[in-house]
């Protein structure tokens, strides 16, 4: 999207100098654990030059831009922005080892008497202690995504053979006339739902316990719709010491090998899930 479009609709300020300050912004990619005042080249969103804004031994990784959010209805455009956002953070991460990533489209603005650059500096200064604490939390670690799926059909089948109550109902249905069989089926479905949830609970606790051992911290995320035939029963973001991910991978492989289960293991991601909140 061109600069023109992003700015359109914004009323022209009367004083030119004021307008410049008010309309400029700094798109913030991450805060890095480094005392650096430098350019990272034109690697930013839409080819903007990325530079650092230092304060003491930390710096914000930013690009200068108009104080307008990046918005588009074009999925490909947004996708490209998001990928670039990630690439810039990756570059900083690789270079300085510890970064606190920000979410896409976080832009610090200027004010009438304060430039955006100054606002970034003041923010780093003001939040210094908090930022340092967060940096220490994630130092030497990376985030991994762990998603556990089961095949409801396989689980239901095994329940039918192991739960006496389900087994009995399932057999009774076959002997009942149509109308009655319908009612029995309803009962069976309710019972099945209950038993499946109990099973999922058991597995969740079991898997969580095994995974937790290899992680420094865990966030339980909402489960998502899975591909047909699978159901996600667990979606975790795990903060893991960089040298422990292989052990985690081995534990996940054990779960992955079980009949009726599958595991998705993604990463390493910058520690997005462990730098926000309290």
């Amino acid at each position, binding site marked *: 999207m061109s600069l023109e479009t992003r700015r359109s609709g914004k009323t022209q300020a009367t004083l030119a100098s004021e307008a410049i300050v008010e309309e400029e912004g700094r798109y913030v990619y991450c805060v890095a654990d480094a005392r650096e005042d430098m350019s990272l080249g034109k690697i930013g969103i839409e080819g903007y030059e990325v530079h650092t804004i230092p304060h003491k031994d930390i710096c914000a990784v930013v690009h200068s831009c108009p104080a307008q959010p990046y918005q588009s209805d074009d*999925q490909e455009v947004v996708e490209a922005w998001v990928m670039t956002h990630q690439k810039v953070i990756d570059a900083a991460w690789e270079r300085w080892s510890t970064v606190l990533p920000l979410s896409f489209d976080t832009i610090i603005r200027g004010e009438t008497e304060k430039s955006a650059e100054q606002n970034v500096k003041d923010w780093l200064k003001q939040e210094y202690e908090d930022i340092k604490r967060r940096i220490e939390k994630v130092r030497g670690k990376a985030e991994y995504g762990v998603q556990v799926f089961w095949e409801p059909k396989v689980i239901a089948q095994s329940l039918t053979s192991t739960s006496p109550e389900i087994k009995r109902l399932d057999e009774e249905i076959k002997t009942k006339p149509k109308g009655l069989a319908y009612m029995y089926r309803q009962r069976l479905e309710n019972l099945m739902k209950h038993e499946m949830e109990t099973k999922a609970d058991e597995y969740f606790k079991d898997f969580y316990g095994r995974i937790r051992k290899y992680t420094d911290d865990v966030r339980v995320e909402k489960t998502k719709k899975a591909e047909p035939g699978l159901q996600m029963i667990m979606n975790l973001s795990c903060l893991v010491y960089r040298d422990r991910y292989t052990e985690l991978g081995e534990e996940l492989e054990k779960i992955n090998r079980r009949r009726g289960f599958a595991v998705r293991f993604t990463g390493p*991601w910058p520690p997005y899930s462990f730098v926000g909140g309290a």
Partner: protein
Amino acid sequence: MEPTRNSHATLVDLLDRVLDKGLVINADIIISLAGVPLIGVNLRAALAGMETMLEYGLMKEWDARTRARESEQRKKNVEPICIAQIAR
């Protein structure tokens, strides 16, 4: 097993993180991003299978309960430093 970060297969995982998470800046110095969640929502809707909809709707409540319980437990076990943060 080895973790993957193949850019196409893990786009959704990336979006989950890049759009919703990260370090938070106090709202008074960042530009209004009212439209931003919308980008996320639209983009997600366009990518198959993004919405939180569980197969058969069977386990929706279970999922919510599990997460609530886990977050409760976390609160109980928080370290003092975190409590100070919450109180802030």
